[in-house]
């Protein structure tokens, strides 16, 4: 759909077309709200159902039943009457809900009475020594290649890290005919103690039922090394060797052409922080998450967040929270209306609570260890500007109390990724160096455009002469 067919105003704009965005938009459009879905991807599905309507991977067992469940959700969405805009990069959201969006190289501004941010999750950075060497990539990037292009990596591939998605990827990878030289499991031994209390909820949940076979399948066919405490990648021009230590402290080496890293996902907060939505540090999940009410409403009027961007909770919760945010929008814009076919709020909340019980165990068990979150010395933290952990710690001594002062010195976080690959690392590094809580340190103050746009694209936007001040300059 071309940008030209977009309207200037919508009742509801949904940003992102993963499980939360699709559920929200489907429900709202069915209820009659003029709804637009702005999706950066080429087709609906988000990350988990990426390319579900057009993937070249046709053997259904490779990606699993949960992936293919997305196809039905996409069909429902397409029948709902919501306007879908693929390839739409939202680069700005303002407090008055004006949205800046780039489509096929052209930008425009549009407004919505309500906005639901459903931009999902990002992989947590895993800044081990050597993580910037060619051949080292995130496991999520490998999964994108598999889903959208049917590609698996060639050569000796090592998978390292922790978290449920690590095992999901391993299973998908093996079923697609890939081989893994080893899985290096960095799950900390100590997390079992805190997680154990939540084991019963987990055992009764679909997470256990679905997760266990994946874990066992991986263990049957791949060398799995548990208890990895130290990890680095070595090589001259690309990764050649993966080096690790377990509890015994003995260094072990394995040659590798590809190292896939993954230690869980965190909310993609960039757009929400750039509009000024209040966030808090979550010490269990070790990330910043937006402060929301029970409907997903943020601290800014008319802007809600649903899905993993509201706090990591997985696909089932994402759909449920998407529906709640849509219900809130329907109630706000169609007050008093009692439409048939709207889902029952109470039953959504019951399902959400049940899902959370199974989730808690996983969250605590797979809480990544400090050694893999908070690097030291010459390990690169900011890939865009090649800033090391030592340099960041040194700015604390110069009087920088947080990321926003530090970035003025090192440009750390000011590159094209806009902090997506270093934000949490920097916060935790500075918190450790100053011996204060990460909440006190805070996160990068992000500003639009949250995704780059060309100067020509910006220049082509409508101008307003009211914005012109006297000719003053610094």
């Amino acid at each position, binding site marked *: 759909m071309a940008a030209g067919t977009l309207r200037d105003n919508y009742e509801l704009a949904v940003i992102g077309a993963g499980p939360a965005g699709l559920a929200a938009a489907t429900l709202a459009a069915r209820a009659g709200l003029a709804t637009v879905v702005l999706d950066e991807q080429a087709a609906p599905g988000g990350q988990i159902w990426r390319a579900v309507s057009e993937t070249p991977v046709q053997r259904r067992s490779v990606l699993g039943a949960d992936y293919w469940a997305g196809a039905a959700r996409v069909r429902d969405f397409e029948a709902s009457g919501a306007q879908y805009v693929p390839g739409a990069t939202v680069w*700005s959201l*303002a*407090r*008055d809900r*004006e949205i*800046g969006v780039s489509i096929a190289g052209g930008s425009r*501004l549009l407004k919505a009475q309500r906005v639901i941010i459903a931009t999902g999750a990002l992989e947590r950075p895993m800044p081990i020594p050597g993580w910037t060497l060619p051949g080292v990539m995130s496991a999520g990037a490998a999964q994108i290649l598999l889903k959208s292009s049917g590609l698996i990596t060639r050569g000796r591939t090592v998978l390292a890290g922790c978290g449920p998605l690590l095992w999901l990827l391993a299973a998908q990878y093996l079923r697609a005919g890939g081989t893994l030289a080893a899985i290096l499991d960095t799950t900390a031994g100590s997390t079992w103690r805190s997680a154990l209390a939540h084991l019963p909820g987990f055992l009764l949940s679909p997470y256990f039922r679905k997760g266990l076979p994946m874990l066992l399948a991986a263990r049957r066919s791949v060398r799995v090394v548990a208890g990895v405490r130290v990890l680095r990648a070595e090589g001259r021009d690309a990764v050649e060797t993966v080096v690790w230590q377990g509890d015994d402290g003995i260094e072990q080496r394995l040659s590798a052409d590809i190292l896939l890293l993954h230690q869980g996902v965190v909310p993609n907060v960039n757009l929400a922080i750039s509009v*000024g939505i209040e966030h808090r540090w979550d010490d269990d999940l070790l990330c910043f998450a937006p402060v929301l009410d029970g409907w997903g409403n943020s601290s800014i009027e008319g802007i809600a967040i649903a899905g993993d961007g509201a706090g990591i909770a997985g696909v089932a919760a994402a759909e449920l929270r998407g529906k709640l945010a849509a219900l809130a929008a329907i109630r706000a814009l169609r007050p008093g209306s009692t439409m048939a076919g709207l889902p029952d709020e109470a039953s959504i909340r019951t399902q959400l609570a049940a899902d959370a019980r199974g989730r808690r165990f996983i969250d605590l068990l797979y809480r990544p260890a400090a050694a893999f979150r908070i690097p030291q010395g010459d390990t690169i933290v900011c890939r865009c500007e090649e800033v090391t952990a030592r340099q960041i710690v040194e700015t604390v001594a*110069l*009087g*920088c*109390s*947080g990321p926003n*002062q530090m970035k*003025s*010195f090192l*440009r750390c976080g*000011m*590159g*094209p990724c*806009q902090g997506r690959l270093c934000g949490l690392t920097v916060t935790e590094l500075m918190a450790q160096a100053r011996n204060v809580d990460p909440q006190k340190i805070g996160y990068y103050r992000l*500003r*639009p*455009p949250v995704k*780059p*746009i*060309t*100067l*020509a694209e*910006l*220049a*082509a*936007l*409508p*101008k*307003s*002469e009211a*914005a*012109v*001040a*006297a*000719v*003053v*300059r*610094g």
Partner: protein
Amino acid sequence: MVRPDVIVIGGGLHGCSIALHLARRGIPVTVLEKDHVGRHASGVNAGGVRRLGRHPAEIPLSVASMELWHSIVDLVDDDCGFECHGQVKVAENPAELEILRERVTMVRSMGFTHEELVDQAELRSLVPAISDHCVGAIVCRADGAALPYRTTLAFRRKAESLGVRFLEETRVTSVRRQGAMWQVESTSGRHEAPRLVNAAGAWAGNLAAMLGEPAPIEVMALMLMISAPIERFLHPVIGATGRPLSFKQYRNGTVLVGGGYRGRPNVETNWTDLDFHGLASSAQTVHDLFPVMRRAEIVRAWAGIEARMPDDIPVIGPSRTSENVWHAFGFCGHGFQMGPIVGSLVAELIATGVTNLPIAPFDIGRFARA
């Protein structure tokens, strides 16, 4: 701990510079800053170190400040990222060139020679990437640019090394005269000193009001944006004549675009809303003047909160309603270059009661109702 002789309210560049210059005179100082040092306009401005185009009243101060900039390492032990590749104000047509010619004549009639008119050929040699339609310019060859946050922090660190105490996250809630002392209540408790400096930027109006002194401040937020690195094509800082522009390329290839388009500030929350219609105008100017920039990627835009006075020049000097209070605020988007000299002269005023620099035009008394 020594009780301060002076409390400076506001940890921007001017507050830090005043504190540093007082400390150099051996006067004990405490600086109170409601956020952190350099949080607002001082830390995020365009960094222009510019005499070019100054209001006539500001020229003597700006020229004196430039002397300090050229030996900034001696003052603060840091080069502040200062680079001296000149400032250029471009004329896009003959009518604008005529305006520039008159400007240079006026500045020379005041006895200053730093502004120099150049023709199209000289402009091209200074700025090869400039669009063909530009016909000439004013050049200030010894002007340049520095890194604002680094500069502000360098002033702070040097001041601290001389004994100045900085209290951040300390918001002033009231000031009152108690005998010979100013009692300043703040979110970090009460602070006392016989003398007080108001260098509170966009918040200086509130402080002046606490002193019963009219200061018609307009709070503004000038927007800036920056590109991803591109190959170096520019050394001087560029301004325009007929439309707002401040344009420079850093050593790392990133390009900064600013020049006077405003966002919407909120002084309570420190938040600034950007106006992309205004940034579009800014982008259009760059699009027209530097064709090489059209495909550059803009990666971030922001705005710093500061104060503007109705006559577009700052307030500098003693209070006219309260004893032992001095003001330095309202720099209207062009205070960064004047930071070193304003600190020096306010410290001189406090220590000696006089200064040789012509500061009468900046008297706060000009806003008093007759």
